[in-house]
């Protein structure tokens, strides 16, 4: 019980006024002594309620116990039995609605923010093992003579590829972009997830013998049927993500200065446009930016806009802070960095000057009504409350749908109303034999840990399936 009295270890971060002028990681990471103190706050509960909150059921008390003893390499080995990407998930998981939501310590204090910082400890031990080269390169199975194609290189595909390679199969990954990593590379900014960590995970795959082919758009360069019938692939895993930006279909959405969050973030992250003077991809000069949306994507876009020099950045959200789906920590960081929040407002139209450049947005005030299908109270527009606001840039961050390319070019793959692949829940097999799928293409825009979990589930079923051939 005394353990519960140990104060929560705050995460050291770059000061807000400094970090808004650079792209480096905001959260610096615990020190060794901090991580051990934080790990000691864990009560090692017999019923382990936290595990139920982790989508891949990491043995949380066990890895925290090793961390408390300073046995970081052993700690990370425990995590790696369930999760292949702890450096990444420790950083980007929405812990407050997953593992930490169930933590007994948080419950005792009647405050989730007082839960054991499971994610921060996970991040520390994984970083420690990587930086001290203590990781074990996963054992590759005996060659089976089977070949598997993996479409995409996001977290679903990374984890599927690793497990398939462990099964002894030849694995080739196909990535449309010139850099591998999926959203981890083109979407989530450097200041939240350093790209060298993603590169490290991809290098591990290469070290295991996985081949990564970039600049290859499956469905265009070659179709799935070609891969299976002509190129000798015995099975395919599709982890093509949810890369189709939604727009709102309001007036003025195609004016100059209106961006999807995907475009805005891709220019900065993938194309490195933030390195002004070095990068050839140009950036738009923004002074007053409105970001529509309230998720992680909206926070990333808003905080990127700040770093790229915008004087004023406002998140415009239809509901209130309570309903915002973004990670709590990102919202707190955004506020510290001076991002403003305009709750209970919805955009009606975008206006432009005679050169077609954005000069304003009309917003309407909302109030909360009855809960909708998502369980959140739905916003109701208040008639007569329309008002014009000055902005020169609009970033639309209201989510992504599934890219329809693979469905459109592959006979036999069925999708639901939203365009997500329909799969067998147990095996992740699609409606086409030998083709499996996981991650955002199945779940809709979801999370890294869920994508990873599905990649592993699919790989397990694929390893079984390949044995029957």
């Amino acid at each position: 019980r005394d353990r519960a009295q140990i104060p929560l270890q705050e995460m050291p971060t770059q000061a807000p006024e400094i970090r808004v002028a650079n792209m480096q990681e905001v959260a610096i990471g615990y020190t060794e002594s901090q991580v051990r103190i934080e790990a000691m706050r864990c009560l090692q509960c017999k019923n382990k309620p936290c595990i139920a909150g982790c989508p891949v059921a990491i043995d949380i008390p066990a890895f925290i116990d090793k961390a408390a003893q300073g046995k970081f390499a052993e700690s990370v080995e425990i995590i790696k039995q369930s999760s292949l990407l702890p450096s990444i998930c420790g950083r980007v998981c929405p812990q407050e609605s997953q593992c930490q939501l169930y933590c007994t310590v948080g419950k005792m204090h009647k405050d989730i923010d007082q839960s054991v910082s499971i994610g921060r400890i996970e991040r520390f031990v994984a970083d420690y093992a990587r930086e001290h080269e203590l990781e074990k390169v996963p054992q590759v199975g005996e060659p089976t003579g089977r070949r598997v194609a993996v479409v995409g290189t996001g977290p679903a595909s990374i984890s599927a590829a690793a497990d398939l390679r462990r099964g002894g199969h030849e694995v080739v990954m196909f990535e449309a972009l010139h850099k591998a990593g999926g959203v981890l590379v083109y979407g989530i900014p450097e200041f939240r997830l350093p790209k060298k960590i993603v590169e490290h995970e991809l290098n591990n795959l290469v070290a295991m013998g996985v081949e990564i082919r970039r600049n290859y758009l499956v469905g265009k360069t070659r179709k799935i049927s070609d891969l299976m019938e002509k190129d000798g692939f015995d099975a395919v895993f599709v982890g093509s993500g949810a890369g189709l930006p939604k727009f709102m279909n309001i007036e003025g959405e195609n004016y100059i200065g209106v961006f999807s969050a995907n475009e805005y973030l891709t220019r900065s992250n993938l194309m490195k446009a933030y390195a002004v003077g070095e990068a050839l991809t140009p950036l738009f000069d923004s002074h007053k930016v409105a970001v529509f949306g309230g998720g992680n994507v909206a926070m990333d876009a808003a905080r990127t806009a700040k770093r790229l020099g915008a004087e004023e950045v406002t998140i415009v959200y239809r509901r209130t802070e309570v309903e915002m789906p973004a990670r709590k920590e990102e919202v707190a960081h955004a506020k510290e960095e001076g991002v403003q929040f305009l709750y209970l407002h919805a955009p009606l139209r975008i206006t432009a000057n005679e050169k077609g450049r954005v000069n304003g947005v009309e917003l309407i005030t909302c109030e909360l009504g009855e809960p909708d299908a998502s369980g959140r109270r739905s916003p109701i527009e208040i008639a007569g409350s329309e008002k014009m606001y000055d902005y020169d840039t609009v970033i639309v961050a209201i989510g992504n749908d599934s890219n329809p390319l693979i469905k459109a070019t592959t006979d036999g793959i069925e999708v639901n109303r939203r365009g997500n692949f329909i799969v067998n829940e147990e095996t992740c097999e699609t409606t086409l034999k030998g083709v499996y799928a996981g991650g955002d293409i199945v779940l809709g825009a979801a999370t890294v840990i869920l994508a990873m979990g599905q990649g592993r589930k699919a790989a397990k079923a694929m390893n079984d399936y390949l044995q029957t051939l």
Partner: protein
Amino acid sequence: MNTILSKQRLSAEVFRMEIEAKEIAEARKPGQFIILQMGGDFGERIPLTIADADPVKGSITLIFQAVGETTHRLALFEVGDTIENLLGPLGKPTDIKKYGKVVCVGGGIGVAPLFPIVQGMKRAGNEVKVIMGARNKDLLIMEEDMKATADEVIVVTDDGSYGRKALVTEPLKELCEQYKPDCVVIIGPPIMMKFAALTTKPYGIHTIVSLNTIMIDGTGMCGGCRVTIGGKTKFVCVDGPEFDGHQVDWDNMLLRLGTYKSKEQEAHHRCHIGMHIKEGEA
């Protein structure tokens, strides 16, 4: 991978390169394009139409005009060099079928992507007339190729230094009235496509244009290439690049193409100084 097999200079600013790209050469159809990226982390991604391909040899041909920094850097590449990143074929192929009488209109560098369409339209059994224009004689490309393929070729230049002194819209209007084509295909600078599409509109002739919006990924992920077609938003890289010329919101597209103009001009100027290239030369 992606080794440059041959390189020719077609005019002061226009280059033809044949590049090794086996899978793209096998899959590509007329009207499709590639996206290339070079120069390590900091290079940009630019789209170029596949002007020709040899599936046996496993190569594609690009014809490009050096207009800014990335195309200038590409122009400096020589035979044997490799292009780091080359993605394709992208976009939907041209709707090639038997229309009857087809007029193909090419302006400037647009003549290059037009050529495989002229070939395709001929092969599909159409009678094909070509109108090709350029600012002046020096900028005219592929006249011989066109003459060897099309049933008739009309050449115009803005300054009258070769062929007829006219804009492409003049002979196009005459053909609309006298020849009455069943389909018109227009590829060239956006402003030319706009006025050429306006020329065919009163005659109700099916008009195909190939749009060249600013792109990044080319896979439908960013939405940067979007245009308004018949009041609806479309992504040029996946829904196009070809659309019904009478449905395009040209003014919005032209404005969007100028989004980064001032920055591009600065970069272009800097690259002329850095690479010791005279203005107007690549």
